[in-house]
């Protein structure tokens, strides 16, 4: 890691914690060790919700690039999640593709969707962009509901479990490890992007568009890059989500889903990777912990959210990165 060899440039996406490279390795290894043994210690239920939380880590890190780094408010992130999932569903079921053959198309579809919607709209002010993305998310969901090829409201079922080099991914534990790997890749990718030329450009543009332009940064292009990369994260998450559940339907891609991912990102602390991961876990595990409360669980959870935001308005993870 060039940027740390002489301890000069602070590493982006972490906040003041974990700036020490050694400490960072210790924490990373501890977390990794925990993730590897978790399914053996805890039962299948915990494995399932941890899988879910790890999926959210991927989605949240993707949205974090859009919202946390580039400062674009996206209320329709579930659309990209849907594009990934439905591309897999349609290609494997309607066209008989193998999962791994369909997978690149899922990513490609997300890139296309990102460019088509982002291209003309990214110059809009944040609040207007929010409604455009919301509208786009709803358009995707309604289209999935109305089109024959996406199975209309019933969705697509019977999506086969993929196998990888002879390993048949099937059980919940298998998928758990798949999502562990995906989440790790997402973390590393986010981290490297944040500390790259492009990652810095996102921060420049977010802090001062005009100054960034004056420094020769094409803000529309840079924002589009953030949007498209965020879309890719979403689509990858969606593709494996589809394989994991084996069935997809429009309910999974609602506005609420977009909002939950956004909540996780902001709750943990936008732009701070550990914060975003924490946010993803809170948003998924919180309501699960409260299951015994029955119909009150969302109420209690929402009050909890409110309190967290009141006490830590910039998100849970400390540090100012992420305005």
């Amino acid at each position: 890691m060039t940027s740390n060899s002489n301890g000069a440039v602070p590493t982006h996406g972490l906040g003041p914690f974990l700036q020490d490279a050694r400490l960072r390795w210790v924490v990373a290894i501890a977390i990794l060790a925990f993730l590897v043994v978790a399914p053996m210690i805890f039962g299948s239920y915990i494995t399932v919700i941890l899988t879910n939380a790890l999926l959210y880590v991927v989605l949240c890190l993707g949205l974090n690039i859009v919202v946390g780094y580039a400062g674009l408010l996206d209320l329709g992130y579930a659309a990209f999640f849907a594009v990934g999932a439905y591309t897999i569903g349609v290609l494997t079921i309607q066209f008989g593709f193998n999962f791994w053959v369909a997978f690149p198309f899922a990513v490609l579809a997300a890139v296309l969707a990102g460019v088509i919607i982002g291209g003309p709209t990214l110059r809009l002010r944040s609040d207007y962009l929010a409604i455009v993305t919301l509208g786009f998310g709803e358009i995707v969901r309604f289209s999935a509901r109305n089109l024959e090829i996406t199975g209309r409201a019933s969705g697509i079922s019977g999506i086969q479990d993929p196998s990888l080099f002879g390993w048949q991914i099937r059980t919940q534990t298998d998928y758990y490890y798949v999502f562990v790997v995906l989440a790790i890749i997402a973390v590393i990718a986010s981290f490297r992007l944040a500390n790259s030329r492009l990652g810095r450009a996102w921060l420049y543009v977010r802090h001062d568009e005009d100054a960034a332009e004056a420094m020769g940064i094409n803000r529309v292009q840079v924002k589009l890059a953030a949007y498209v990369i965020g879309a890719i994260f979403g689509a990858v998450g969606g593709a494996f989500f589809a394989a994991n559940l084996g069935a997809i339907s429009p309910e999974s891609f609602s506005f609420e889903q977009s909002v939950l991912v956004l909540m996780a990102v902001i709750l943990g602390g936008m732009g701070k990777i550990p914060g975003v991961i924490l946010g993803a876990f809170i948003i998924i595990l919180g309501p699960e912990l409260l299951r015994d409360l029955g119909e009150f669980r969302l109420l209690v959870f929402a009050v909890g959210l409110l309190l967290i935001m009141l006490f830590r308005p910039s998100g849970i993870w400390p540090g100012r990165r992420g305005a």
Partner: protein
Amino acid sequence: MTAFDVVMQQIVNGLVLGSFYALVALGYTMIFGVIKLLNFAHGDLYMVGGFVGFLVLSAISGITGGGWTGVAISMFLSMIAVGCLGVVIERVAYHPMLRAPRLSILITALAVSLVLQNTVLSITHGQYTAFGADFGFGGVNLGNVFITYNQMILVGIAAFLMIGLEVFVSRTQYGRAMRAVAIDKDMCQLMGINVSGVIAVTFLIGSALAAAAGTLAGAYYGSVWYFMGFLIGLKAFTAAVIGGIGSIPGAMLGGLILGFLEAFGTQLPGIGSEWKDVFSFAVLILVLVFKPTGLLGKSEQERM
């Protein structure tokens, strides 16, 4: 019905629907104006307004009956109650966040929305509640176009509230202060304007308008439900943006336009009811691509 009748009838439908959207959109836009917050709890205030209206009407219908008199009184009391609720929410949940990053308040608003929704869900066990207003189906036939008295009264009340708001904002001290706060909060503080007070009044009025819409909707459509604010909240947000968020006439215009888009989207061959929302959102996106600040929004300041 001839094609002409259908068009006329859909205009009436769009007008009624648009009036509801506009009333809710106004609160959205006012609150956005003063604290730049997309208040996602606004739709839920509409819902709470519906329930409060229902409670009041249940209590007084023995005296007033379930007709428009009773509904008008319920609406008025609901406006006061929910207006105060709006102020309390602002004080408790938003005010401490005003110096926080903008998106953090957004999450607070979402949390408030969840709290309101799930509180009512717990109390009502998710049941739909019949509102109990007792209206006739009577109306006027203009050729084949049928307009009920209820629709006329409804649009009349909505128009009255909107004109009242416009007068308030353009003619009164508070209204001027509100516009000033919308432009530059810090400057207003320096000028000795009670910014907190202005924000509170804005929430009071915005929430009261949502409550009015909620009560009217409950009475007109006949039932209230814990989730009834969700969809209209989304639609009102859309309407406010089409019109130009922050602009009061824009919210009215946006509400009506969205009402018409949905009415005609249902009717248009090739679109139909299944695709009408896709149609509305597509129009929204196109409007913003070509007019990036909405129809009546102020264009952005010159750069630099």
